[in-house]
């Protein structure tokens, strides 16, 4: 479970302080699929980065499974990200010199899996998203949709507690976007917690709950059935 209390994030540029998140209280239960929406500049990606421990808030608290993240060292945050979280980025964020298989296997190896075991698990994850025939291709040899599926495989191969996705379909065509959302639906059906930032209403509607942000605050929360 993730809980934020009065979460704030400000950016300072010289004397100018910009408050992007203005005291957000938020709870995500295990197994939930949450879509975060809002217009550009509303603070949705910034919010995702805070709760996924990629950034540090300037105020408030984040509690992850009872752990107060404010007290965590960078090393502990790194361990948390490695073992508990999976990330899917808008631009796929694959390492260009690693093949699809290596990209997916890398976090597993960092978890101290042997190379053989990591490769085996990575190959299974890639096969599940329909890329069993693309294991040894470099990202530059894959289409955008395929790269995003590799990114999802990397995010889920180590069976994370929470999957964070930052506009995962923004750079994809309709078919690829649908394929990505199908994967998310399957994962959610199997109990995966997913928190996804999106600006696409049709994909947000697939979630359990839509959280709408505006000007750094939550303005509405809509549950499935009321979408």
């Amino acid at each position, binding site marked *: 479970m993730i809980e934020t209390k009065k979460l704030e994030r400000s950016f300072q540029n010289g004397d100018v302080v910009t408050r992007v998140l203005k005291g957000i209280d938020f709870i995500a239960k295990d197994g939930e699929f949450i879509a975060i929406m809002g217009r550009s500049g509303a603070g949705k990606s910034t919010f995702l*980065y805070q709760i996924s421990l*990629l*950034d540090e808030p300037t105020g408030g608290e984040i509690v992850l499974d009872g752990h107060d993240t404010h007290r965590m060292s960078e*090393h502990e945050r*790194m*361990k948390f*990200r*490695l*073992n508990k*979280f999976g*990330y899917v*980025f808008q631009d796929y*964020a694959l*390492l*260009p*010199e*690693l093949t699809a298989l*290596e990209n997916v296997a*890398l*976090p597993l*190896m*960092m978890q*101290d899996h042997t*190379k053989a075991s990591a490769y085996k698990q990575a190959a299974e994850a890639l096969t599940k998203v329909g890329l069993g025939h693309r294991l040894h291709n*470099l990202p530059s040899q894959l289409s955008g949709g395929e790269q995003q599926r590799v990114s999802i495989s*990397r995010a889920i191969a180590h069976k994370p507690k929470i999957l964070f996705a930052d506009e995962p379909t923004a750079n994809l065509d309709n078919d690829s976007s649908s394929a990505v959302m199908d994967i998310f639906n399957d994962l959610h059906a199997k109990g995966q917690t997913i928190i996804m930032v999106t600006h696409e209403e049709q994909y947000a509607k697939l979630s359990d709950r839509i959280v709408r942000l505006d000007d750094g605050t939550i303005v509405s929360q809509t549950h499935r059935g009321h979408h």
Partner: protein
Amino acid sequence: MPLNLRIGFFLATRALRRASLWTTGLIIGVMVLTFLNLVVVSGILVGLIQGSIEQWRTEYTGDVIISTLTDKKFIENSPNVIGIINGLPQIEKYTTRYRESGTLEANYKTRKDTDKPNTTGAQISGIDPYQENAVTGVAKKIVEGSYLTANDYDQVLLGHYLLSQYVPIDNPDFAALNNVGVGTKIRLTVGGVTREVTVKGVVKSKVDEVSRAVYMVDTQFRSIIGRNDGNVDVIALKLKKGEDPEAVKEALLLRGVGTLAKVQTFEDAQPKFLKDIVSMFNTLGSAFGSIGLVVASITIFIVVFINAITRRKFIGILKGIGISGRAIEVSYIFQSIFYAVVGSGIGLFLVYVFLVPLFQAHPIDFPFSDGILVAPLDSTLYRVGLLIFATVIAGYIPARMIIRKNTLDSILGRN
């Protein structure tokens, strides 16, 4: 293998395997040039003098030289000393020399009474032509005429510095013989005895003791200096391959030769200025090498820094997905080591397979020596170690600078 090392190695091998060939080639090229700068510049500097020392050994002193004590006219009991030499198994060959100072005069037949005599001083060596050539290879240094034989009567070899046509300087204090070549008759005066001799050949060497010497068959020379007791002035020893001159010197001293003569290894007998120059060139070589090392470090720093800056986003992603900063640093260190090791490996190949044999076969023709490339393996490996160490540091620092930046800022490219 510790986890960070394993992941760092994994990342490094992939980065290297899939890096641009041009970039990899360029970095390795820089490392090769740096290595050559480290090894070859100082190696040639030292080699200039080493060449001179080597020629001093092979053309004059041999490996060990036994000479007259300062307060004696010759090596007393020379037959006894020679007997001891013959009993040492380390010695392959030796040559004995009679040496006296003398004067040479040319053009005396055509000189008018008002003309200044054309004379020059020289060290005259009475030698056994066969033994001398076996130890010093002097016959190969003949540039005009031919070498002496045991039966030559009143014939001499002249060092080329005694002849004006070979002397590159026009200095009134530096006397040389004019119009003298093979077949010319000259006067040789030693200890008040003058004899007319014929020039049989000219010896050209970069060792002063040879280039300013006059060689004559020892039996002839003995009759000039009036010495028939078998006592000689110099004995040069050539040792069997691999034998230690210092050990032979010790063996001779142990047998009492030190009381009759001065016993020196070729290194002991080197003129002090040569030793000083070797020391100075070593220092200069180290100074040039240090500059090369700094340049290499800066180059690697810049290369890794640019690489890390342009890959900052991916470094951020690696950290974001939970790869430790240490593992990422290790990957850059491995890459730096790779560049240094491959660069040094190619450098070692070039030095030992190509350059050292090339300089041996075609020494640099300096006025005072035939310069070779001196690259002892132990000091070369020490320089390889230095280069790798400097490269590792130069690779680590920029990687660390980038890795320490905020993870999200790196991913988003924010400053």
